[in-house]
């Protein structure tokens, strides 16, 4: 039944990894502007962001 131990450890490691990623994304401010993130996808620019004036269109 030692296989249960392996499975337990594996599932906890995966879940814990997910939790760690979530906490990191929270800390790095990815949940700060949910409204903006939801709307931004509708305004996907054809041209790359940060293009400077004067460059050809």
């Amino acid at each position, binding site marked *: 039944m030692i296989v249960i131990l392996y499975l337990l450890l594996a599932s906890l490691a995966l*879940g814990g990894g997910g939790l760690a990623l979530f906490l990191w994304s929270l800390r790095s401010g990815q949940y700060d502007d949910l409204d903006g993130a939801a709307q931004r996808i509708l305004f996907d620019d054809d041209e790359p*962001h940060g293009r400077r004036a004067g460059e050809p269109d």
Partner: protein
Amino acid sequence: MTDAALIDRPASTVAAENAACVHCGSPTAPGRRFCCAGCSAAYETIQRLGLGRYYRQRLLDPTARAPRPEPPAARYDLRRHVVARSDGTCELALAVDGLQCGACVWLIESVLARDAAVLAGRVNMTTRRLRLVWRGAAAEAERLVELVEALGYRLVPFDPAALAMAEDRTGRELVRALGIAGFAAGNVMLLSIGEWAGLMQDMGPATRDLLHWVTALLALPAVALAGQPFFASAFAALRHGRTNMDVPISLGVTLVTGISLVDTFGGGTHTYYESALMLLFFLLVGRLLDHRARGRVRAAAEQLLMLRTADVAVQSPDGTNVRRPPEQVAPGDRVLVAMGERIGVDGIVEKGESPLDTSLVTGESLPMTVQPGTAVYAGMLNLGGALVVCARATGPRTVLAECVRLIEAAEARRGRFVVLADRVARAYVPVVHVAALGTFIFWLLLGGDTLGQALLIASAVLIVTCPCAIALAVPAVQVIASSRLFGKGVLLKSPTALERLAEVDTVVFDKTGTLTEPLLALETTPDVDQPTLKLAAGLAVASRHPLARALAAAYGPVPATDSVTEHAGAGLSCATPGGELRLGSRGFCGLPPAAAATDGETAAAEPELWLTQPGRQPVQFHFVERPRADAARVIAELRRMRLAVQVLSGDRAASVMPLATALGIPDWQAACSPVDKVTALNALAASGKRVLMVGDGLNDGPALAAASVSASPSTAADISQTMADLVFQGGKLWPVVQALVTARRARSVIRQNLTLSLAYNALTVPLAIAGLITPWLAAAAMSASSLLVIGNSLRLRRTGADR
């Protein structure tokens, strides 16, 4: 009733809505594409940059400020807020006013990205802030800000240090708690399924204990972390000698976890970690949704505070101007107020003559003309020429600040309202826990049971009385009622507004802008014929003065007359081959002052415009306030609902009385100052009345806060929208009735829910005390009661709450 409300809409409103400015969407003279030169310029800029998609993709938000560019004015000393970084770049944090939707964010970012100097310009739509990073001198800030302001947005710099304070800390904590609870609940649930499956088969006690230990290791830290929001609130309540809904939740979660831990140590068959975690997870989802819904409103309030703090231009003795924040202005300083600028201090006009928009301070819809010697107050908007004001009071001592203080004081009083759920919890919690303790002692001492058995029966009592159904009874109804009202154009801002609204027995209205239309209407008089009106309207479309707009709207679509000159605060003129045409005040048109005009009171009573043409008699245009189209119907309906109706107005009795009589309101009071209104409302409250206050001006702000619940139309001054518990959209008053009806229905459903969950407890608790219910059966019964409560709440969605 919905159909009737639609039919009720007057044809003129539909026509007026069609004539909207292409750029800012605000009503404009019919037949014209733009409402002003600023909008036209903004439109051209956007088209030139190839960003015309903006107009197709945006969705104008009627509650937000229209994106109309204002004349450029140096309102702030931007350089004070610029943070220069070591790598030669500068950073500036700005609050953005006038954001409508995602397209605005895209537009601002695209325009900034096309500027060579800008390294980063990113708008946070939730907090409505813009972070701007550029390479170059700090002075560049002015140019970049103007770039965005020319599009019709207003930018206000703020201290990034204040940003940390304004950050949404509670929201973050809730999301963190939710993440942890979700992770732990999911994993514990999976382990529990394995355990239950094993119990049906032939899992050995050793494996079962292992699973219990692993779940305990997961659940204990998770409960400790994710339960924080509930524990903190429960602890705070207990420390003040009160209980609230969080107390039973915290106790339930702690006890269920504790019992499970005892079982884990003792090698028992059952643990209930998953129940505790699932409960936390679901409650946190509800809390977070609630928090987010109100976050938008809170952000708007913060925005308002920021927008109010414009720098003022102080004249030094040597004649130069220095921009300073209002709190750094000393009494006696000379402050220069340019056209289009809001006055930042209270004081007396020293030089200049100009009309002021005083609506924010007095609620008066017509501009007031000031001259040297007139007292002016912070918050008034200068519509005409430059003024020099000698400061008397600044910052916290201004009348505006006084109003804000009145509001805060009233808010604090209202904060003592106890929501129904907490009142129930106060009675419920002690009873339940005494019952569980009694059960435990009874079975241990008298029943002769072992410690473990007694504990198990007591825990069944606790689980069966788990406050799930009661905790859900109120929020479930509130979420459904709010979304229903939202669909009807009523925005509920306070979580307790529905409950307070249901108790209302008196409705108090402000007059100007609430019972009446925000815009004045032209009175039809025999000496104004159609050609004259057309001529005057053609001149009037050139101006944004309220009277000129009312005049232009009265005629309908009309081509603008060419080469019209606007004389600030006086009128409009136009040179024609036959001579000069003039439209404006009596004095501007070269007429002798009217006999009554010497008495300032009467002169202000009759808003008028004059038109002079060469070789013709001057023509007078009279304007009147028109009640909102459905005002009479709303008053009648409120009476039918057995509500007392009153009018408290800051306006003169001469204009309040006719309106009150026409609408059938015998109970009215005129010439009320903000303090009078608060006194009147407090008197009503003292006589045991529950008052709904409906108002729209800043002068109504304190009254809105003093009433037990308050409402504002979305056309109201920002500050009163911030104060009001609910904001309704559209040109009608009917939403007030809808909100009252929905609140009353919501209250009855909440009562049903509470009755249901108490009945469930009355049924199951005796069985649990008798030891007839095992804990897992208790858990099933508990879920069933929760579903019952949610199902009952959903009925609110289907029944006709319009009636």
